[in-house]
Each structure stands twice: as structure tokens, then as C-alpha cells.
């Protein structure tokens, strides 16, 4: 059987006759690029349908086509595909870098305009449309308090929930919890805002508030908690699962009860990873605008009390200033955005560095 098949095949299908391959000379790609650019410029300006941007776009397309054709003719189809995909992947990178770089550049260049002491020391109280000053002190206070309270709520709750799922839970109930944590991850932030609006602001808080809806920083913290909780649970869960079994077994072998083992051995081992997860969750929560917009009420004055009266937040401040008609508002919006990004990035970078230093198992 084997031999008959082998006989009726004459030449191995995949074997090249020679190892040498004809190659496009090194100058070919730049030459094709130059030619593409010239042709594109001639076509675009000749017909007058566009400017330099269109020239670049047309040139890029011509370059891809030209490269494929040249490589296909000289090196063969496989090499041509390889070259073209390579070029496409590189251009995807360039294409994406442009807008992202523009975001960063605008943020910094426009953000430094109002980056002064005034901005961090005053609020928007009594700042009219013609006042160039005004600041985000009240918003910074709001962000810190809301995020802080949200962390106070979610960290114990999330860690305990993860411990249940990893260490104790089993069967359908634990599966249901895992599933609904996944579901919670997908809740849009605006929906969590609506939930707290329907639950806390409109139903529960009026009880303490003479029947008036109680917009407050605490309500915002609740909404942020709903968003943070799944992140904290998931990252804690992952970290707990990475704690090596011998550590637990060592403790059990010494007769240490399970709860003590978890608190004294498992949690401390997983702690760096858990802290990383919490910091990333906090960073994300700090940047949320929509839930705060719905339930914190905004407000221009400094309010240290998160449980009573309106509060603002940095993200909300950016949104409000962006919608403000005053000609000084955009500068305030950009500086607040820069502050917010700095806050979020410091948290994120710290979290990632921490994660890099303490890698459990992986």
C-alpha cells in the first residue's frame, strides 16, 4: 500500500529544488513606496479631489498593492503574503498611534494652561461665566471620598466573597455566585448609576431626608461599589487559586484550623496580587462619570460630608465644564482631565509595578 502510493507520486510536493530563493533587492520596498507616493500625488493633485492626507492614504494603498505584486512576481506567493501582512500589521500600529498620541498631546498641552495653585485650592462656588479663575478642589475632595468609601465597602466584601468561592463554596450555589460575578462585570456604569438612583436616592434615602431624594457622595460611592465589586472578587479569586497547595497543607498538618490558615497563611501570600486588583478597580472607579452624574448631584461648592447634599467628582467636573458656555470653561475641563488622568495613571502604574514584583507562581 505504502509503496504503491509512493510510486505514483513522482516528486515530493513540498520540496524546493534549491535552497536559494530569488529575493527582492533591499532597495525595492523604499523604491515602491516612493513610486506610490509620486503616483498618488499626481493622481490626487491632478484631479484636485483632496490634499496631502489623501495623498498619504492613496500612497499607502498603492504601496501595499505594489509590494504584493513585486514580491509575488519575484519571490512567490507565500513570501508576498508574508510581506503584505507584515506591512499591514505595521501600518495598523502607525494608524492607531496617531490618535492616541494626539489624545496624550492635547491632554498635556491644554491641561497645563490652568495647572496653578488656584485650581487646586478653590472650588467653583460663586464663579460666574466671566470669571477666569475657579478650581476643582471640591471635585478632588469628592473623588477621593467617593472612591475611598467605595473601596471600604468593596474590599472586605469582595475578598470574603472570593474566599467563599475558592475555599468553601461548592456545587450550584458557588457556581451561581461565580456566574453572577461574571454578569456583574458586564454591567454598564450608567446602569449601576440608575440602580443606585432607584434604590438609594429615590427610595431609601428619603426616609432620613424628610422625604426628599438624597443625592450625595455616598450614593455615588454605592454606585462605584457595584462596579468595583466584580473586579475585586475576580482578581482576589485568581490570586487565591495561585497560592501553592503545600502552604495550606503545611498549616493543616500543624493542626491550624482552616479559617486561621486562610487568614494567616493564604491571604498574606496572595496579598500583593489582591492589592494590585483593588488598585486597578479603584483607578477605574475614579474615572467613572456616568454614575456620579446620576446620583451625586454635582454642585459647585466644597462639601466634605459625603452623606449629605450634593458632591462633585473630578470626572463629573470635566463633563460639566465641557458643557459650560464660559470661554474659561474648556481650560478648566482640560486641567481637570489632566489631574484625573494623572491620578488614575499613578494608581495603575503602581498596581502594575507591584504586580510585576510579586508574581505568584506564574
Amino acid at each position, binding site marked *: 500500500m*505504502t509503496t504503491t*502510493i509512493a510510486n505514483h507520486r513522482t516528486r515530493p*510536493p*513540498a520540496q*524546493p529544488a534549491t*535552497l*536559494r*530563493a530569488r529575493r527582492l533587492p533591499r532597495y525595492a520596498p523604499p523604491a515602491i513606496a516612493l513610486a506610490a507616493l509620486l503616483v498618488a500625488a499626481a493622481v490626487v493633485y491632478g484631479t484636485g479631489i483632496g490634499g496631502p492626507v489623501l495623498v498619504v492614504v492613496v500612497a499607502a494603498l498603492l504601496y501595499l498593492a505594489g509590494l504584493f505584486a513585486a514580491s509575488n512576481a519575484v519571490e512567490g506567493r507565500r513570501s508576498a503574503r508574508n510581506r503584505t501582512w507584515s506591512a499591514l500589521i505595521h501600518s495598523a500600529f502607525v494608524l492607531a498611534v496617531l490618535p492616541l498620541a494626539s489624545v496624550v498631546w492635547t491632554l498635556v498641552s491644554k491641561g497645563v494652561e490652568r495647572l496653578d495653585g488656584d485650581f487646586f485650592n478653590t472650588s467653583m462656588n460663586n464663579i460666574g461665566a466671566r470669571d477666569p479663575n475657579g478650581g476643582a478642589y471640591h471635585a478632588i475632595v469628592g473623588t477621593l471620598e467617593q472612591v475611598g468609601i467605595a473601596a471600604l465597602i468593596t474590599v472586605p466584601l469582595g475578598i470574603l466573597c472570593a474566599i467563599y468561592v475558592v475555599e468553601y463554596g461548592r456545587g450550584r450555589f458557588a457556581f451561581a455566585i461565580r456566574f453572577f460575578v461574571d454578569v456583574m462585570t458586564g454591567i454598564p456604569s450608567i446602569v449601576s448609576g440608575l440602580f443606585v438612583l432607584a434604590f438609594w436616592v429615590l427610595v431609601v434615602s428619603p426616609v432620613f431626608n424628610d422625604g426628599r431624594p438624597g443625592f450625595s457622595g455616598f450614593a455615588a460611592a454605592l454606585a462605584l461599589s457595584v462596579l468595583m465589586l466584580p473586579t475585586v472578587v475576580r482578581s482576589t479569586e485568581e490570586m487565591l487559586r495561585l497560592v501553592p497547595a503545600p502552604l495550606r497543607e503545611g498549616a493543616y498538618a500543624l493542626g491550624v484550623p482552616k479559617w486561621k490558615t486562610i487568614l494567616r497563611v493564604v491571604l498574606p501570600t496572595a496579598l500583593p496580587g489582591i492589592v494590585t486588583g483593588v488598585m486597578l478597580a479603584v483607578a477605574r472607579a475614579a474615572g467613572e462619570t456616568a454614575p456620579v452624574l446620576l446620583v451625586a448631584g454635582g454642585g459647585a461648592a466644597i462639601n466634605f460630608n459625603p452623606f449629605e447634599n450634593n458632591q462633585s467628582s473630578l470626572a463629573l467636573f470635566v463633563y460639566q465644564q465641557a458643557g459650560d458656555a464660559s470661554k474659561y470653561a474648556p481650560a478648566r475641563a482640560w486641567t481637570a482631565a489632566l489631574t484625573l488622568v494623572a491620578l488614575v495613571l499613578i494608581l495603575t502604574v503602581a498596581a502594575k509595578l507591584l504586580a510585576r514584583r510579586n508574581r505568584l507562581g506564574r
Partner: protein
Amino acid sequence: MAKRIDASNVTAYYGAFKAIEDINLTVEPKTVTALIGPSGCGKSTFLRSINRMHEVLPGARVEGDLTIDGQNIYDRDVDVTAVRRMIGMVFQRPNPFPTMSIFENVVAGLRLNGLRKKSILDEAAERALRSANLWDEVKDRLGKPGAGLSGGQQQRLCIARTIAVEPQVVLMDEPCSALDPISTLAIEDLMFQLKDKFTIIIVTHNMQQAARVSDRTAFFSIEKTGDPGRLIEYDNTQKIFSNPSQKKTEDYITGRFG
């Protein structure tokens, strides 16, 4: 089909680290050559430089000449992919493509070369699987994931995948080190059959295996950690294992070091 390989003054680096130095040896067509030596002596590095897989690692490079039937594979106008099609490789751990079926695994190399026709692929797959002594075990489940096989079957699947493109040389990098004794035996039997068609070079830690399967044996060694590996002795396997000319070789094969 099978081709002769000449290495002269082959030196390979990982970045600044020199892994092997001045390797000179000739491998005859249709023979099995075993590369043995202590860990870290550079035998795998040398093997990987024969089909230019060494340079896949970042910073790794090779100096010297390596010719296959007179063509230097390190010449500038040589197509790397052509080299690797001509010189197939089987790795230490079985590595079938996890998302592909048994059939798709075997014909993966042929598909890369543009073969699309079902009848040709079917034929080639059967031929390769038969040559790898795997056909009878898998013919009823060609559509199942290749990774669902046992370790030994997976390794024979990888061999089938390698020989399906009908290379001229097959390199094997400790192909049995992750396998149980029975699977190992199956692969060794396979090597006997394959050397009718291919030139085979095998790296092994198992000296009995080298003695069983190979015609010629090359012994590599290093002075101390951090030094480049060198070829100490290269001769007929029988001679190496019965009457080596180098003291070092004798020490190694009698188990005095390494």
C-alpha cells in the same frame, strides 16, 4: 531523498554567550547519527543550527559553514523556509497544534506549501501516518483533536507531520525524553525504518538509546559551566561505546561524569 551534511567551524551564540565552538563533522546520507553529552554541552544548540531554528531565539546567531549537499544553508541568498522544509525537526515534547485535528496536524506542512486538493492531502496523510506507525491507531478518528492522543502517539503524530512534507533530513531533539519505555521503543523502531529514506540526527540523553539506534555517535562536552560546548569525539557508534579514543568519552559513557 537523503542528503549529506557538512559542518565546518560552526560556532553558535546566545547574545554574548558562546554556546558551541568550532564544531566540525560530516553526516552521511541515510544514517542515524546520535549526539550525546552532558547537559548544557550544546548538542541541542548544534542540532537547532542545522535547520536554522537556533536563530529563532532573540539574540541567537551562528557562525561558520553548514552545507547540505554542497549548499551552504547560511548563505545570504538562502531562503530560511526552504531550509526548514528540507530539514525537518521533531521536538523534545510532543507539540501537535492544539486546535487542529489529527488529520489537520499531519497535513499542516503541506497546506503551508499551497496543497489544497483533498485527495492529495488524504493520500499524503495516510502515507505519513503509516510511515510513523500510527495509521492503524488513528485511522478511525482522524477528525479528533491531535492533542487527545497519548504522549507517545502525539510524538509519532509530530513525526508524521514532519515527514509528510518529505524532508531530506530529520532532526530529533530528545524525542523520547517525555515518553514512557513502551512509547520510546515504538519510536526507536520507527527510526530504524525511517533511515531508509531520511538522514536522521538525534540528540539523546539516554546512552543505551544512542547505542541501539545510531550508526555514528558524536560526543559533545564542556570544560566547565559558562564555557562553549565542543565536539570531543565522533566515530562509529560501536567504536565509541566499546573503545573510545578519548579519555573524556570513556569517562562519560562509563558513567564517571555527566
